[in-house]
């Protein structure tokens, strides 16, 4: 017996859902969606759950992560209920539920919260730089350490526990058992999806827009490579021309591709880009700023004029800190992580229980 909770809709609206109340459950959206299947029926069902406020059904559902927001459903909905957008909002809601700190939810629902957080980081970075009285080379050094520790810390204390919580909701609360074999066999899914977003290619829409998929793919690779280059190969301090060149290429990839994404969002050509939540904007803009500022810093180093333009490095550091402390753990960045894990968890629960392979 599930209790209907009409207040839930107010909550979900804050995550960016809007017109879904108009839905009269005709099912056109589910019929048209190229990604839904017999194990995961969406988006109509998710709209029902949302309307009725069945939180526990939503929290334990993996379906929202199966949707890549191609927007076919929204284009075809006879009531203009924008089911694709609802799926997106539910993903934001889910992220806030996985996040034990509760900060994700706070930021998603309040633009002001985001802005305050950004300001705190700016004040923090500038404050430390003024108070610390470090010289420039020392600063470069600290910047590098900050990067290493923040990444490790965020992963250990925030993202890892959150993934465990996600696992608990999706796998444990549904199956109530821990099938090691399934967990092992399904691991492949995790990596494939993390790097390729393979599933999005099954979408009819994406098939016609392979450029988008390719850009996305390049961006993921570029981003991970830049991360590796700056953090582990210490790009800003390296003497190796090869590493230096790699850094230029990767950062350039990032700001070129994100620039295109910003343009797409501004043009609102497709359903996917027709509605942008603040968190979507922050994600692309900060990625862009990060790429371009890293590029500029290294350029100034190579030209030997960083001393005179030290504000550029400070700017880069501010962007980096905001990215690492706000957007990565509590913002849109996590989509990338949770979606990959969702594919993994879905593979676990949808697999028939460890059947001996010989039995045919």
């Amino acid at each position, binding site marked *: 017996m*599930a209790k209907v909770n009409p207040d839930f809709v107010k909550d979900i609206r804050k995550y960016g859902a809007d017109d879904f109340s108009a839905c009269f459950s005709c099912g056109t959206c589910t019929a048209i969606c190229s990604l839904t299947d017999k194990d995961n029926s969406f988006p109509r069902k998710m709209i029902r759950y949302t309307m009725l406020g069945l939180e526990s059904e939503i929290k334990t559902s993996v379906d929202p992560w199966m949707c890549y927001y191609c927007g076919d459903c929204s284009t075809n909905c006879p009531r203009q209920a924008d089911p694709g957008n609802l799926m997106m909002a539910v993903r934001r809601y889910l992220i806030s539920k996985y996040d034990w700190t509760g900060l994700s939810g706070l930021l998603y629902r309040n633009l002001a919260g985001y802005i305050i957080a950004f300001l705190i980081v700016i004040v923090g970075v500038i404050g430390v730089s003024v108070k610390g009285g470090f010289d420039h080379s020392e600063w470069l050094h600290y910047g590098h350490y900050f990067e290493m520790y923040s990444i490790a810390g965020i992963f250990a204390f925030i993202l890892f526990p959150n993934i465990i919580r996600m696992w608990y909701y999706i796998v444990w609360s549904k199956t109530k058992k821990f099938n090691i074999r399934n967990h092992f066999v399904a691991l492949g899914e995790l990596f494939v999806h993390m790097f390729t977003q393979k599933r999005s290619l099954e979408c009819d829409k994406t098939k016609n827009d392979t450029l988008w998929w390719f850009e996305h793919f390049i961006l993921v690779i570029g981003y991970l490579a830049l991360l590796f280059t700056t953090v582990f190969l210490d790009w800003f301090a390296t003497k190796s021309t090869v590493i230096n060149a790699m850094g230029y290429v990767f950062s350039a990839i990032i700001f070129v591709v994100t620039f295109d994404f910003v343009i797409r969002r501004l043009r609102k050509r497709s359903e996917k880009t027709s509605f942008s939540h603040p968190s979507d904007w922050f994600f692309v803009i900060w990625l862009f700023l990060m790429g371009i500022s890293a590029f500029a810093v290294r350029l100034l180093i190579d030209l030997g004029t960083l001393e005179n333009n030290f504000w550029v490095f400070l700017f880069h550091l501010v962007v980096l800190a905001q990215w690492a402390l706000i957007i990565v753990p509590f913002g849109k960045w996590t989509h990338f992580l949770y979606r990959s894990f969702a594919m993994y968890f879905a593979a676990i629960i949808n697999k028939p229980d460890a059947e001996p392979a010989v039995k045919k």
Partner: protein
Amino acid sequence: MKERIGVYICHCGGNISDYVDVEELGKMFHAEDNVIISKDVMFACADSNQKAMVNDISENHLDAIVVASCSPKLHLHTFKNVASRAGLNPTNYVQVNIREQCSWPHSDKPREATVKAAGLIRAGINRVSHSESLDNIEIQVKRAVLVVGAGVAGMKAAIDLARLGNEVYLVEKDYFVGGRIAQADKLFMSGQKGKDIVAKLYAELKSYKNITLFTGATVEKVSGSLGNFHVDIKIKPRYIHVKADPTTVKKAMDECSIMVDDAFSFALTKRKAIYKNYAEALPDVPVVDIEALKNDTEFLSKYASSFDLTQQDEVLSLYAGSVLVTTGFDSYQPKDGEYGYKTVPNVLTLPEFNSLMELNPEQLVYNNKAIKKIAFIYCVGNRQTKGENKYCSRQCCTSAIYSSIQLKEKYKNITAFHLFRDIRTYGKQEILYEKSSKQGDIYIRWDEKEPPIVEQDGKSINIKVKDHLTSKKELEVEADMVVLVTGMVAREDSQQISEKFKIPIGNDKFFNEIHPKLKPVETVIKGVYIGGSCQGPKNISESVQSSLSAAAKINALLKGGTVSLDPVVARVNNDVCTWCGKCAEVCEYTAIRSIASGDKQIAQVNEAICTGCGICAPVCLVNAIEIAQYTDSEIESMIDGFMQKIEIRDKSSESEEVETTEVLMMKEFPQLWKNILESIDKSKKSIPQLAEELATDKEIITYHLMTMNKYSVVMADGMDEKEAYYYYKRKN
């Protein structure tokens, strides 16, 4: 006896002649049969043939004609008109149907089809030779209309009838006009207030001198018939003195302190003992509730000059040419405990709830509780596949949704749940459904087999329901109030009205029209029409549409001052009739009464009422009553004609030989019937038992048994143990 008959046998293109040997039939009838002209024609209905028929009739002095062609439904009037044009009385025309009855059904047996056609044509010739020349019956009609019920349907019709120049008597049972919509606040689709519409219609009504409105009035007795209905109405008194000063009456009304439950607001409020249904109710004269007030002698004597307690029921006799019944509907009243009605607090019906909304302009409060969450349960008392009221009331979905939209416009922080079976906001009303969902109303769909369960849960109400839109998930809905969306049922007293005017009532207890598509406002009683929601569930526009079309029909009927009726009616042979009264007893239309004739009583048929149904003729023991155009001599001659032997040449065989044959007929029961009878004579049997015993298909047994049942050869006699099949026995 007609002795100069013309016979025309139609090919109907090839529709008839492809199977029936039309040419052979055209040569079959001669002077011995009183037939002067006999022809086969390609299209009997074609203009050229009609002209030829007119010529034939006048040149050959024909005194009767027969056309053997299609169904009389199609062309009876065509050929009657041909007869008229040629100066022949149209009742001397008979149409024989050899298409629907011969060529089409027997296309597999052309020869037998021809033989059957020959029999039918001979029967037709025999009948027409006995035909009489009859004139239509002309009836003088009074240009006055009685309209019963002053709801929106009745008022609109009365206004139209008066505008077209008819005298109108509008009889309303209540003391105030308007019917159900006076009880409503805003109405879909226009958003107008019901009370405003009533006020507007009343003003229009009053502007016509030829409308007389009677309130507090009911129909007591009806006699007479089309053109001259004779109606007694009873008018209840208001007990307000005719010469009372209105301001004093108003003062008395303000001062009155005796309060009783107000039926008009569904007992949500109290009303005074001197009252109007609502402040602006019309006519603007209050009513004294004498029962409630009779003990307050002090008050009564204070305002003695305003009251007249001696007033009595008054009976008036009215004469009207036609009657329009627009008595409307009742709302279904749930039984105690039905979805918690009367057993769980805060469960109301939709009309009650609408009244409550109207009474609470600012905040929705009931039983001192602020109401925020409201659950509507649909189809209450309607669409019950088992039990009464199988129909859908068609306006309640829209009504409930419209109320829900009003709710959110009027009050803050309202949540509305709609527990529905199907949403039937047909036509333009669909936009209201869309609006309601867009404003966030929550729709939950249940199935008749598992209705929602309403229970009290502390201070609020808990409803359990299985949602068919969410994989039949069991849901719990918490609400402050439950609104039962009740449908329409026939008026409680519709049976009485039906008896007075002889209007047939359907299984659903609403009044029945003759034909829902072709005669949608006519009843089987000539001159009596129905309109509005007394016919069946209707919203306002539909109610008004039907009552206005009845008004137009009535006006067309009465406009000329006379009405011409078909002469197919019963007639009495005065010499033979002994007034045993048997015919009057069986006549459902009460067309027969007794009159004095010389020194005895005899039966007399009111031709304006008689429908020619024929029920009276067979019951008369002395054969004193018969139906014109269906007299015994005509019918018997037809049977004789059909049974006569026919000489026919078989074209398909080479020989020139003429064969004499009998028209095929059932001389005895088919073998299977005999076997069935033999078997059930031993002991009663069910269909499967017979099928087994006679080693015959169940379907075949069923078909024959049903035919035998229809012709009263067998009858049902109880059911078998599993209650699956009837037993059958021979009917004596």
